[in-house]
């Protein structure tokens, strides 16, 4: 049952002859989100909450939020949380986790936060093998500020700051964070997943679980990149956004586990 501060209304509780087959995870706050229709943050949040429930760690978990569309991610989890400056989530998480070694700490960051302004903090926390889990939402665009170029924007992709499409020389190529992270000795788990299909969503949940598992076992830094849709800034329907992930993003950002110390 949902143990958040907003209990399920009685009208929605199962009657004696009914069986509850679908409910919000206890770690997820039961409240409407501010995200746009078709945005994948909702799915990503739910997956994280399910994993926290299944690992039974929510009561010792601390979320370090970021700046971007997910700035208010803490509103949607029933765990202790704090705000970090733009890009600094992994450094802030380092401080929290060091100060409170018994806690479970995760960051939830978009592509601007993780891969542009916070690249140094993200890479160095990973390289130090900080016992934190970083969840990276890659939707190839700056959502909150209105669709500007991200470090993960695809070559040729038009954004509000690349009106002619992104050029490799001068504007750079899409940064492949999972491959970058997997190359660091301190990283215990790195996987890129996508949220465009049921199959991929299921794989994403498994990846998230593993990325927390390495933290719980003290193996090192856990990292999951989630290819996500931004229908609003892509100017697409949610269905078309899902197609874009599979047809345009996955060829540039291949899915799969690039590092896993769990079985070693």
């Amino acid at each position, binding site marked *: 049952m949902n*143990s958040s*501060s907003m209990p399920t209304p009685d009208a929605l509780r199962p009657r004696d002859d009914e069986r509850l087959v679908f409910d919000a995870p206890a770690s997820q706050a039961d409240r409407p989100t501010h995200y746009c229709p078709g945005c994948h943050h909702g799915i990503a949040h739910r997956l994280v909450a399910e994993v926290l429930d299944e690992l039974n760690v*929510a*009561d*010792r*978990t*601390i979320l*370090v*939020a970021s700046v971007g569309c997910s*700035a208010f991610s*803490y509103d949607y*989890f*029933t*765990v*202790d*949380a*704090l*705000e*970090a*400056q733009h890009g*600094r989530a992994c*450094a*802030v*998480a*380092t*401080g*929290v*986790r*060091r*100060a*409170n070694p*018994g*806690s*479970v700490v995760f960051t939830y960051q978009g592509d601007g936060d993780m891969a542009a302004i916070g690249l*140094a*903090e993200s890479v*160095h926390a990973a390289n*130090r093998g900080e016992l934190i889990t970083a969840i990276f939402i890659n939707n190839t665009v700056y959502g909150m500020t209105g669709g500007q170029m991200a470090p993960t924007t695809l070559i040729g992709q038009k954004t509000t700051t690349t009106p002619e499409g992104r050029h490799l020389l001068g504007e750079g190529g899409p940064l492949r964070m999972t491959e970058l992270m997997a190359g660091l000795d301190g990283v215990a788990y790195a996987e890129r997943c996508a949220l465009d299909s049921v199959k991929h969503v299921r794989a994403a949940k498994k990846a998230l679980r593993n990325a927390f598992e390495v933290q719980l076992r003290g193996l090192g830094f856990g990292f999951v990149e989630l290819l996500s849709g931004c229908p609003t800034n892509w100017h697409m329907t949610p269905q078309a956004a899902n197609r874009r992930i599979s047809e345009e993003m996955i060829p540039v950002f291949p899915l799969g586990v690039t590092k896993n110390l769990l079985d070693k």
Partner: protein
Amino acid sequence: MSDTVARTLIKGNEAVAFGAVDAGCRCYFGYPITPQNEIPETMSRLLPAVSGHYVQAESEVAAASMLLGACAAGVPSMTSSSGCGISLMQEALSYMNGSMLPAVLVNMARGGPGLGDIGPSQGDYFQAVKGGGHGDHRNIVLAPATAQECYDFMFRAFALAFTYANPVMVLGDAIVGQIKEPVRRTPPADALSPAQLEALAAPWRVEGRGKRGPGAAPRLIKSVYLAEGALAARNRLLQDKYEAMRAEARSLSYNVDDADLVVVAYGSIARAVRSTLRALREQGVAVGLFRPVTLYPFPDEALRALAAARPGRRFLVIEQNLGQMVEDVRLALFGAAGCGAEVLWHGLMPGLLANAQMLEEPVRMALAGKEIRS
């Protein structure tokens, strides 16, 4: 000479580290920069021995962010830096003010602007006492002048940071950090114990809601207030807190009773001035010294009391910058409250190694009402 037993000869920077750890500091985050490297070096030795954490960060931006995280967890924690490094920490400093976190930062200031030099300077006065980061915020600022004070003020810094849930900056300089002097490692009388610090953080720290029993509501530490009127309410709270901090203003006075001229100086410059005044006293010249120990809150009431105690006496601000603290002195003594006291100023250039002899001339001239600006 019975008091020699407990003294050890250590640098101001080392005294900072010993004081911090003895005061209960358990996390240090930093990035090397001269002239404060003995602080991280000493911390990297001391903290593992007390189950603490020393992290050499990838930058001062990251170090201050780690500090934010550790402070949010309610654990006495600190960073230290100088010059450009302190500039890089201003982002997190603003957030820590907005989030009301008990951060302790040490600035062993060096000469600027820019890369400047690694010599002593008081050019960071404005940055330290007027906030430094974006938004309207205030740091409590303590200014040690001796290695012993470096040790003692770390206790005070943690006590104030946790009492007010507010960042505290300990502002020294290259002299204060590099000087080796006898230090007694005994907690000052006004120190708070680690248990007292923890008790002050218990009501707000993030720790995992399970620590507060089953069904506890989650906690959130943040500085963002978007709802209409919410930021105004938050800033009013901060304003009230800054007002309450005024009770923490501290200063020291030397030989002021019969002085026609009172020199106002802090930190290492106050030491040089004290020697200058000693030499002048021997020549029968009555000059006193007023030394702000807290730069924020500024000890303006004590300064006004000095002006009222001997109407007509002059004040001479001596500082190692182009004129910063003099503004606070003039504000304190402005109008009727300052009894019309005249405020003169003498500045020393950054990087210069000030000594007692070089200050005699500006003090003598000020006695005659003449200002030698620098």
